[in-house]
């Protein structure tokens, strides 16, 4: 008799203990970046630097990237947002964007009939370390303008 009752109690306890406690995730809206009306050109990963980036552009920039034009369109505006990578909390096997590292903006302006001016700015984000090595401005400009757009359905 006792054995039966204790078996029942054990079974009941097992049932109760198998319930999971529901913690709620701590959302991090500070990792979001609002690119306004600019559209996605592509994402770029860099495991050597531990970063993950999104290149956005206005329609003229998107067209330049899409058609791989030798020279970007005048009036093209680009934004390259770079985040520090972090492991996805719920899935070992994926890395995702964490703190914003930098925001680079580039505007292609017409100087005269034949020449373009590149209006480039580099802003630092929370994940930026002053000691980090920086590329030359001219290298960054050619990096941004040489990206082909990702293929979308």
């Amino acid at each position, binding site marked *: *008799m006792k054995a039966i009752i204790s078996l029942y109690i*054990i079974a009941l306890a*097992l049932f109760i203990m198998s319930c999971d406690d529901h913690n709620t995730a701590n959302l991090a809206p500070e990792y979001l970046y609002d690119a306004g009306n600019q559209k996605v050109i592509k994402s*770029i990963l*860099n495991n050597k630097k531990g970063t993950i980036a999104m290149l956005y552009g206005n329609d003229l920039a998107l067209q330049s990237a899409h058609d791989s034009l030798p020279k970007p369109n005048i009036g093209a505006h680009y934004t390259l947002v770079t985040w520090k*990578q972090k492991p*996805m909390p*719920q899935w070992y096997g994926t890395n995702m964007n964490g703190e914003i590292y930098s925001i680079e903006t580039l505007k292609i302006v017409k100087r005269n009939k034949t020449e373009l001016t590149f209006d480039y700015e580099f802003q630092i984000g929370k994940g930026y370390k002053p000691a980090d090595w920086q590329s030359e401005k001219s290298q960054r400009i050619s990096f941004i303008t040489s990206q082909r757009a990702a*293929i979308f359905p």
Partner: protein
Amino acid sequence: MKKPGLTFYRGAAIMVIVIFVGLQMISPNIENPPVTSEIAVPAEVKQILERACYDCHSNEAKVEWFDKIAPASFLVAHDIDEARSRFNFSEWDKNPTAVQELLLWEMVNAIEQEKMPLKRYTLAHSGGKVTASELAVLKQYVNTLPGRHKVDTARIVARTSVNQKASTQKTPVSLNNIPYSSDYKNWKIISVTDKFDGGSMRIVYGNDIMVKAIEKRQLPFPDGARIVKVVWGKQAEDKDGNVRPGNFQNAQFMIKDSKKYSATEGWGFAKFDGLDLKPAGKTVLFEQTCANCHRLLAPENDFVFNIPTK
């Protein structure tokens, strides 16, 4: 009110015994069907799987005497049925290779998050626990699987007139009635990922409802929230370490409607493969496969993996 006498207790005891004995008579029998195609993994990995997972996820369950006593036996039989339906190490070849890899990564994650083996199983079978060093062995193993370093070397294919036709003629609709729509191209990005376990990179979009909920730190996400994840292969790394998207692989949708999709945790799942956006899944059951993994590993995120969290 008369105090219940001895006869009452005796009656009650007899009743309990009768119920208990009756339960034993209808207690389920746990069968071990034949092993048709056993998983082939290195010995040190096999050893861990056999000890921690085989009792439920194989056709070689070692059922202890106490597992056979009702009502526990009902629970044991239920858990074994459920486990075998998710994946079965004794019928491993039933899964395509890509699914086998995904399942192995899912196992590692389930063990790491202590969702598996089930607590009720390890309480009764203390040998079923997986130690930290064993988890490290499993992690090391999944990192040797082919998907881990897959590079998309194929020529990048843009939309052809054929795809164009397919996508303008008829809107692809998933088996659970979710239509493909390209609205997401005007949405905000909620995360950017490198899914290195399968060699793909993703951009994840959220509609206004979804983005506002993240900004307000509102969980669970409200009805009307939508998420679209666009997936590409990964091109080879350049000399500076940059990895760019290769070919478009698929677009995955999640739509929050707590009533309509109550069977899948309030989310409607859909996946559209390739540039012609072929709805994924052979039967409508495909959505349970999505939901099972989201349910197991991301309950504290309202079942969404790809959201910015601390």
